[in-house]
C-alpha cells in the first residue's frame, strides 16, 4: 500500500492503496465518485473514460501510481452544475437508454469539442469509435454532439456580445 495525492475535479484527494490499483477503482471504491463506470477492464468499452491533463484516458487501464499531479476530471467534474452544453444536449435529445455508457461518451465527446468545436459526422465517428453503447444510441450521441456544438456557439456569441 502507498499514499497517493490526486488532483480530482479541482480537489486534492489522498488515498492509501496498492500502487497498481487502476484509477477506475480508486475513484469508485475510495473516492465515492461512481460516475466513472466499469465495463470491461481492458480499455475496450471506454465507459471509464476520464480526462487526465485534458486528454481522454481509460481509467481502468491507468494505475493510480501513474497519475501524479496531473489534473483528473471525471463526469462529476465536467461542469459544476450539470450544464455543460453536452449535458444539456443529452437531456434535451433524451440520448440515454440504460445510460451506463454515457459518462464515458460525454467525457470523450467533451475532449473532442475542446479540440474541435464544430466537428463533422466523420470527425465524430472517428473520435467516438472507441466508446461502446450496448443500447445502440449512436445516432443520438452524434446528434447530441452537434447540438452541444450549437449550444456552445450560441452561448459564446452571447458572451462576446456582452
Amino acid at each position, binding site marked *: 500500500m502507498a499514499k497517493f495525492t490526486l488532483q480530482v475535479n479541482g480537489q486534492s484527494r489522498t488515498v492509501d492503496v496498492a500502487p497498481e490499483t487502476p484509477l477506475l477503482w480508486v475513484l*469508485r471504491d475510495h473516492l465515492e465518485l461512481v460516475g466513472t463506470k466499469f465495463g470491461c*477492464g481492458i480499455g475496450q468499452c471506454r465507459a471509464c473514460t476520464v480526462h487526465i491533463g485534458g486528454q481522454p484516458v481509460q481509467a481502468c487501464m491507468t494505475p493510480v501510481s501513474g497519475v501524479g499531479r496531473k489534473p483528473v476530471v471525471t*463526469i462529476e467534474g465536467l461542469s459544476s452544475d450539470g450544464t455543460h452544453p453536452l449535458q444539456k444536449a443529452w*437531456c434535451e435529445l*433524451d440520448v440515454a437508454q*440504460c445510460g451506463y455508457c454515457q*459518462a464515458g461518451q460525454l467525457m470523450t465527446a467533451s475532449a473532442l469539442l475542446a479540440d474541435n468545436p464544430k466537428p463533422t459526422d466523420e470527425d465524430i465517428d472517428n473520435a467516438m469509435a472507441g466508446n461502446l453503447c*450496448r443500447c445502440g444510441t449512436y445516432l443520438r450521441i452524434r446528434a447530441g454532439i452537434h447540438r452541444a456544438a450549437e449550444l456552445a456557439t450560441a452561448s459564446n456569441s452571447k458572451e462576446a456580445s456582452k
Partner: protein
Amino acid sequence: MNPYEAPTPPTLPSLDRRDFLRLTSVASGGLILGSFLKSTGDLKAAEIAKTAPAGDFTPNAFIRLGVDGSITLIAPRPDSGQGVKTSLPMLLAEDLEAPWQSVTVQMADLNAIYGSQAAGGSTSTPTFYSLLRQLGTTARIMLIEAAAQNWGVPASECVAEAAVVHHRASKRSLAYRDLVAKAATLPVPDAKKAILKDPKDFKLLGRRISGVDNQKIVTGQNLFGLDFKLPGMAYAMYEKCPVFGGKVVSANLDRIKTLPGVKDAFILEGTSDLRGLMPGVAIIADSTWAALSARRQLKIVWNEGSHANDSWDNFTQQAQALAAKGTGNVVRKDGDIDAAFAVATKTVEGTYSYPFISHANLEPQNCTARVSADHAEIWAPSQNPGAGADMVNKVLGIPKANITVHILRAGGGFGRRLSADFVIEAAAISQKAGVPVKLTWTREDDLRHDHFRPGGFHFLKGGVDASGKITAWRNHTVLFAGGLSADEFPSRFIPNHLGLSSVIDNSMPMGPWRAPGSCVFAFVYQSFIDELAHAAGRDPLAVRLEILGDHGTVPGTGERGTPYNAARMKAVVKLVAEKSGWGKKLPRGQGQGIAFHFSHRGYIAQVAEVTVSKTGELRVDRVVCVADVGSQIVNLSGAENQVEGSIVDGLSAAWRQELNIERGRIVEANLAEYQLLRMPDAPRKIECHFLQSDNPPTGLGEPVLPPLAPAVANAIFAATGKRIRQLPFSKTDISWS
C-alpha cells in the same frame, strides 16, 4: 424457461398466505387483474399509508399527493434502458392531470401490491396502459369531489387541469395541495368504472419526454446497481467452473486468505440449477481491486462433469446427423408436402444457422446483499426482482416475508437480468460470510457465464409453383431446447407445410435474449422467403404481400397459440415500401432488402439499404421501419429510442457477434474478441414511422429487432448476389466483382 420463446411474466400479484387471505377477502373471488385494482385501494392502509406522512393523499399504491403540493408517482417496474421508469408514471400523470414537471417519480421496491414487477416480454405497456390511467382517473375524481364538496356544487360542474380544480361558473379554483386533506377522507371509487380521458385531450401521452433519470446519468450520480454501497460492506467476487455444471473439488483458499485486503475465501457447493446458484469459490475483500487481484492467484481443481468435450463443431455435427435422419418431433403438418414438391416448378434447399451470443449488458452483473440466517435485504439491478426473492427463498430457506428487494437502475437488460443467478450468488455469499457484500462480476464472468441466446440450425426446403407462388415449406429445426411454437411465420400461410424439431444434447445455460426466438427465426424465414422469391424471379415485396393474402386475423394453434393479424402486417409492409421508395434502381454494390415480423403483439416491417464495396465491406445506409404497436404511443422519445436501439442492436448481433465453444467452455473472454457494433458501423440513417391502428397499445422493447437482420441480409443479396445463410454476417464473404 424456453429460451426461444418470449417470457410471459404473470400479471398477478405473487403473495404469501397472509397477503393472499387479505386480498381474497376484499376481492371476493378470483385474483384477476381487475380485483387487483380494487385491492390496491384497500391495501393502501396496510402497506403504503404506514410509510406516507400523515395527511397525505394516497388513493392507491401508485400515487401520493402531499399537503406540501408534492406529487409522487411510483414506477412499478425496473428500468434497464427500455424507458418504463418514465413511460409508466406518464400514464398516471396524464389522467391525474398532474403537470409532468411537478411530478417526482419514485422507483418501487419489490411488493406484491404492484403485481408482477418483471420487466420482460414487452409486457409493461400492455399490462399497465389502462390500469395506471384508471388509477390516475380515480385520484382525479376524488380531488374534484373534494373541491365540489368544499364549494357545495355538483362535481360534474368541476374540471381538473394542471393540478388545479376549477368551477368555471363561479370562477373558483383550488389547487390539489389544498384538496389533499379532504380527498384523503373520501371513499375510493371503482377504478374499472372510471371514464378515461379522450385521447384527443391528451397533454402528455404521445409527446417526447426526456427520461426521468437523465440528469443523474449525465452528471454521474449514484444510480446503477454497481454504484450502490452499504456501510461496512465487503467486495465479493465469485469464480465458477468454465464448463457449465462443473463442481469445485478444491481450491488454494489458505493462500488466498493471506493476500492483501482479503477478508475471507470459501467454496459454495451451490445447486444443480444451471441458471441458479452454481458451485464456485467466493473471495471477500476490502475493495474491488483487492478481490480481483486475489482472484488472479486463485487455483481451483474442478470436476468438469460430463459436458467437458462439448464444442460448437460437435453441436454442428449432431445437428447435421439429426437432419440427415429426417425425423423429429412434428411441430406442424399442413396439406401434402410431398405432392406439392412433386409439382413445384422451382425448389430451393438451404441450411441456416446462428451461434450462441451474449447479452453483454455494459454494466456487468452485480448485486448487493445483506443476509442473515433468516432475513435478506437485496439491492439489485434486476429486470425481475421477484425471481431474485423466489430464489433466495428456495435456496437459502429464508421466508418470503423476510426478504426485501430494492430495485436499482440496470445498465442494460435485454433479458439477461430476468435471471436471478447474480442475486442468489450475492445473497449466499453474504449469508456465509456474515457481512453485507457487493458482488461484482468481471466482463469475463459476464461473457462466459451468460444465460446465452442459444444457437440453432434450420434445414429448409421450399417450393414454388408455375405461377411463382410459394406452395411448399419444409423446415427441420435443430435447436438446444424443445417446445417450439407451431405458429412461427410462415406457418398458417403456406398450404403445404411440414415443421420438424430436434434437440441437441447440451448443458448450456440459456435464457431469453431480446425478442427470444423471434430474434433469430425472423432472420431464417424472412431470408428464405427472399430466396424463394428470387428463385421464382419475382419481387420480394409482391411475394410477401401474396403470402399475407386477404386473411385478416388467423387464429393461433392450440391453447397457447397466438392469433396473427395479417391485415395489420400487410398495412405496415405496404407503408414501409412506400416510405422507403421500394424498388428504386440502384447501382451494383447497393441494394434494398425487406423483411417483416410479428412478435410481442407488435407488427413491424423494415427496409434496409446497404452499400457493399467490391472487397466486401458493408455499410448500412438507411433503415426505414414501420411499427404498428396499437393506437397510442406513450412516450414518443422513448418509443423512437427503442426503435433506433433495436435496429442498432439487431445489426450488432447479426454482423459480428459470436461465441465459440470448445472443451465445454466459451472461447471469447472479453470485448476485444466479442465485437459489439461501434458508432462508425451504425446505420447512417434510421427512419421510424408508427402506424397507429385501432388496437390496444403494446410494448416496443423487443418487436422491432427481429426484422433487421433479414432486411440487411436481403439487401446484401440485392447488392451483391451473395446469400447469407449463417450468422454472424462476418463469416460470409460478400465481396463481388
